[in-house]
């Protein structure tokens, strides 16, 4: 028994010696290296608790190795320590990934918010542009409509004014036409009346002339109607005062001249060639004036009567015979055609 106890220290010393001489198991080497790597990385900061667990596992394995280098359990402990280091590293990477993901999510949220904000701003700008454009279009349309309405109104006014002017013009024209019609009708009536009067005057004149033809010669020549009164009927020889028969004849002449009140009358005195020429001339003038005075006294306007003496200068027949001289002694009353009382008289 004493020998047995004496062998125990010897055996222990032998084991210690063999332990010192034994090689470090690879599991422990891996665990040490892994722990050193993790301790010098972000794992220390990101997974300190897991790294502490790994540290304790490694110390346990180291203790077991110090106690028994050949211990199979010690190798398992080193194996476990290595896994603990790997777990700590995995946790550190997980924390890092989660942190990165959180940052990314935050940035994603910020970017999305920014994009949403920019999109909203862009939509707002677009909406504002569309609103402005729509308002501008509406304003332009209203302006165009207003212009069109004003133009239409102006055109309507112009057309109305033109229509009114045309109506006024038409009314004036109608009024003028009515007036002209009335005037025309009046003129026609006047004309008809004048025609009637003229016809009546012509009839009266013809009747008067026919009446004159009982004692006078009435003829038409280029000067007009010529009433030739024989000198023996009107005056005694050498005298210029009217005889009683002459006054009756001249009464008929005056009546006949009243039928042509607007025509100029020339009273021409003519003598035969007996006696002095100047005497004959003066006698023809006196006789013409006597006839003029008588006619004026009988209502024929004096200003339409002209008395002219021709003496013996315009004989109608030969002065050699008594009959011829009687023909030359005459008074011719020329009712000039178409010449009124103010007409130009014919002078010798």
């Amino acid at each position, binding site marked *: 028994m004493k020998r047995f106890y004496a*062998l125990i220290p010897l055996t222990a010393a032998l084991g210690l010696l063999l332990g010192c001489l034994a090689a470090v198991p690879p599991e422990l080497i891996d665990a040490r290296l892994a722990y050193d790597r993790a301790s010098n990385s972000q794992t220390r900061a990101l997974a300190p608790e897991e790294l502490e667990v790994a540290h304790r596992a490694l110390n346990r394995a180291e203790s077991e190795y110090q106690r028994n280098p050949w211990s199979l359990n010690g190798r398992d*402990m080193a194996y476990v320590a290595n896994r603990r280091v*790997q777990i700590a590293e995995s946790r550190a*990477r*997980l924390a890092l990934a989660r942190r*990165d993901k959180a940052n*990314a999510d935050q*940035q994603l949220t910020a970017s999305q918010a*920014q994009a949403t*904000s920019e999109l909203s701003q862009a939509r707002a700008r677009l909406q504002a542009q569309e609103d402005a454009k729509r308002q501008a279009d509406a304003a332009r349309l209203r302006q165009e409509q207003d212009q069109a309405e004003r133009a239409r109104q102006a055109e309507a006014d112009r057309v109305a004014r033109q229509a009114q002017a045309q109506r006024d013009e038409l009314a004036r024209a109608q009024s003028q036409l009515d007036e002209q019609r009335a005037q025309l009708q009046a003129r026609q009536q006047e004309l008809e009346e004048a025609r009637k009067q003229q016809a009546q005057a012509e009839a009266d004149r013809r009747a008067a002339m026919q009446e004159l033809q009982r004692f006078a010669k009435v003829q038409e020549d280029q000067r007009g109607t010529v009433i030739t009164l024989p000198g023996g009927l009107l005056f005694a020889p050498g005298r210029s005062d009217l005889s009683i028969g002459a006054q009756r004849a001249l009464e008929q002449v005056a009546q006949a001249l009243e039928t042509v009140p607007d025509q100029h009358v020339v009273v021409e005195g003519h003598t035969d060639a007996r006696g002095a020429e100047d005497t004959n001339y003066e006698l023809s003038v006196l006789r013409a004036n006597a006839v003029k005075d008588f006619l004026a006294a009988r209502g024929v306007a004096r200003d339409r009567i002209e008395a002219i003496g021709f003496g013996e200068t315009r004989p109608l027949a030969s002065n050699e015979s008594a009959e011829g001289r009687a023909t030359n002694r005459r008074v011719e009353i020329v009712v000039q055609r178409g010449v009124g009382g103010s007409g130009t008289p014919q002078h010798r």
Partner: protein
Amino acid sequence: MRTILCAAVLAGLAGCATSRAPLNKMADARGEIRAAEQLDADHVSTAASYLSLAREEEDRGRRLINSGQHRRASFVLERAQADAELALALATEIPARAEAERAIDRVKQLQSQVPATGGSGTTTTPAPEVKP
């Protein structure tokens, strides 16, 4: 010498026989494996290999318990739990990193699409990069 070795073996057998089965560690390992499975670690390439290791170690631990090697089974189950936890961590980490990268890509894409507005006053910081 023979006597000493026999005594040691007997003492070891006695210790194993008397220690209790590490059922708690078995349950812990099983729980971590199920958590990894629920996170669909089988379809995350890196995590799937660790999950497979965890399952193998769980089976080995079960066999050790059945054979009465409770102490050894305890350490094997610790390995199984550690592998399962690593699978779980990777199954959580890798999709999170992919999601972060997608978010960063979306930010970059949005920033490239949205032109910088002058005068809006809003500035955006560059998108972070995921470090392994």
